[in-house]
Every structure is written in C-alpha cells, then in structure tokens.
C-alpha cells in the first residue's frame, strides 16, 4: 500500500497535509502523535470511510480490515455469533483460529454485552483474523488490554506479518511489537492551508 501527499480534514478543517509513506507486505507501521493530531482521521481515510482532500492512496481498496475505537459488537449476540457473522460477511467460515488466537473459547457462548472492557476488545481484535484481509488498520488496538492479552495481540500480529500481511496502527502506548514508527505531528496542516477543504471556498 502506498500513500502519497495525502491531506485529510475533520469537521471541515484540514488536519494533516503532505502525508506520504509506503507499507510493504510483512511490515508494520505505528503512527504516533499527540491527542488531536489526526491519527483517527488519517486511519478512517485509509479505510475508505472518508475521502482525502488531496493526494492518493494506492493498493488499499478492498484489502483493509479496519478496527476503530468502537468494536462493532452486538451485545445481544454471543461471542461465537458475533465472530461467525463477520466471518460470513468476509466469505470465510472458520472462526476456530480466531477464538483460539485470543483465548475466547471459555467465553464463546456468553453474550458480548456481558464481557468486561478488555474481553470485548479481545473479541474486537479477533474479528480481524476472520476477515482474511491483508492490511490491518487499527486505532489504539491495545486499549483496556492486560499484559497477557497484549502478548496475544503481539503474536497474532506477528503471525499476520509473517503470512505476508501488513498493519498500520495508531497508539500512545507500547504495543509489545517492534515496528517502524511514523510521527504524524510533523505533517500537521498549517493553519492557513487551504487544500480544498469544504470551507476553503469561503476564505
């Protein structure tokens, strides 16, 4: 996947400009930057949920599995039902690996609504394994996870990378994997940047 000279806006205001990087197969990239720097905005854009102001994103289409701040769980479905739903949507059937990968077997028949914060997050991450998509785009994946669960995530990620996948993650804390780091505060849009944002026409 390759991003070149990307500018993104949030609430009509450009947040980042000139972001360029490439993500090879088997590679992980960690985005860092202070609160409000624009990490979430950038990731949403790469996942195809909002359009960039300028610039190109190549090789991302239909290859991205997005994990947002929210986990997309139905609290009235069991852990197993939640996972198999997403597996079917992405054309897979086997959820055994995902259940094992995040130690969810003992919880498999519990309603997702009754899980603790960290258990929910584990389920949210397990969803990535059933998508079969090569590029993981994750927003603060290890929030609420304890050390063991972070280790599970680490090994799932390593498995994904050795299988030729790649990952782009925003985080403030230690992910337990070593990866290239990109500090996006360097790309902060200048306050007078226009970049064709929706309010630029009025400036």
């Amino acid at each position, binding site marked *: 996947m390759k991003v070149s000279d990307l500018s993104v806006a949030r609430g009509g205001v450009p947040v980042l400009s000139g972001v360029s990087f490439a993500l090879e197969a088997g590679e992980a990239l960690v985005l860092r930057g202070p609160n409000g720097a624009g990490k979430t905005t950038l990731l949403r854009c790469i996942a195809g949920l909002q359009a960039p102001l300028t610039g190109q994103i190549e090789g991302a289409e239909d290859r991205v599995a997005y994990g947002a701040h929210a986990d997309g769980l139905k609290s009235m479905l069991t852990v197993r039902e939640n996972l198999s739903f997403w597996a079917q949507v992405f054309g897979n059937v086997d959820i055994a690996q995902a259940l094992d990968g995040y130690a969810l077997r*003992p*919880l498999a028949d*519990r*309603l997702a*609504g*009754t899980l603790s914060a960290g258990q929910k997050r584990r389920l949210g991450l397990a969803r990535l394994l059933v998508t079969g998509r090569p590029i993981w785009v994750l927003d603060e994946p290890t929030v609420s996870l304890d050390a063991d669960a972070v280790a599970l995530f680490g090994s799932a990620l390593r498995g994904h990378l050795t299988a030729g996948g790649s990952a782009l993650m925003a985080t403030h804390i230690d992910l337990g994997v070593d990866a290239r780091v990109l500090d996006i505060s360097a790309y902060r849009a200048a306050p007078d940047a226009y970049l064709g944002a929706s309010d630029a026409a009025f400036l």
Partner: protein
Amino acid sequence: MSLWQYANPVKFLALSERVQPVLWALAAVFVSVGLLWGFFGTPDDVRQGSTVKIIYLHVPAALMAINAWFMMLVASLIWLIRRHHVSALAAKAAAPVGLVMTLIALVTGAIWGQPMWGTWWAWDPRLTSFLILFLFYLGYIALWQAVEDPDTAADLTSVLCLVGSVFAVLSRYAVQFWNQGLHQGTSIPVATGNRSVADVFFYPLVLAMIGFGLLFLALVVYRTGTEIRLRRTAALRARMNRGA
C-alpha cells in the same frame, strides 16, 4: 416449620414433584366433567339458544384471567418484601397462563357477541377493561424477557405489576365513565335472567370454574419448576465458566 421453607427452590421442586400428579389429575377431571356436562348435559336457553354453552368456557376463563393477575400481584409483593426467588419465578410463570386465559375470554366473548349483540366486538367497559388487562399481560411478559439479569427483571416486573394494578383499577373506572355498555352485570354466575333454569347451568359452570382454577394451579406449579431449573442451569453454567 413455616410455609416459607417452600420459598427455597430445591424444597419447592421436591414438593411440586409430589403434588403435581394429584393437581393435574384433579384439573383434568374437573375441567372435562364440567365441560362435558355443560356441553352435552344442559338444555338450551330460552333466549340465547345453544350459545349459552359458551358460558362454561367464557366465565371460568375470565375469572382465572383476573385471578392470575391478582396472584402475580401477591407474588410480586412477596418478592419485593421478602425476596424469595420462588415467588418471583411463580409470578413469571403465571403470566403466560393469565394471558391465554384472557385470550380465551376475549375470543369466546367475541364469538358469543356475534349472535347476541350482532357484533364481534363492542367498546363495552367490561370488554374494554379485559383488553387493557391483555395489554398489561403483554407488557409484563415483554419486560421479563427484555431484562437480562434475572433478579433485576424480577424487581422491575414486580414494580410494574404494582403500578399496573393501580392503573388497571383506574382504567376500569375511566372506562365505565366513558361508556355504559352492553355486557351483563356481575352477579352470582347466573347465566340468564331466567331463574328457573339457573341451577341447570349453575352446577356444570361451578365444576368448570374449579377445573380452570386447578388447571391454572397445575400449570403455574409446573412452570415455576421449569423456571427454577432454568435458573439453576444458568447459575451452574456461570460458575463453571468462572472456574474455567
């Protein structure tokens, strides 16, 4: 030894296993004798013709529909005050039975209404208050099903039952104020104005009423047992998952 010992689920299950055969048998005998006698062994009424036979279903069902709600009210109060699980579960178990009884009263009444009043349905106060009762049953059951935590569900439905009872009484007065109606007044269950044939209808009716009461009891005891078993299964499962 107090009666409260049967508020223990396990004790209740043991007791219910013992009384159930008797209850079911008695209920079957009374219901079938009452209905068969009523259907085959009573004459037609002078004015109502053979439709009077509907009374053996209609009145017992109507009676039990009201009594079931009353029982739920008492059980809810016991749960709120003394927190006996069996009591809460008995209220839960009774609701669908009451709902079906209400439905039977409504349906038989409607079928009866067509020949007698020339309409399936009229907005008569008695009929209307039964419809409102039906709604209360629906809401009560829906609330039980919607709340996940069983104790919370018991609490909430109990309060709903209390508040609902107050509003049901209020509605009864409001409805009476709103429309005077067609339905016969409550009296001793004498079906017709014609006193001379009253006894003929009276005995099978009483049998059917006792039978419906026993059937209600048997169903509630059985269903309470089911609810207890479901709770116990859930409790064991939850503990096992914790152990895992």
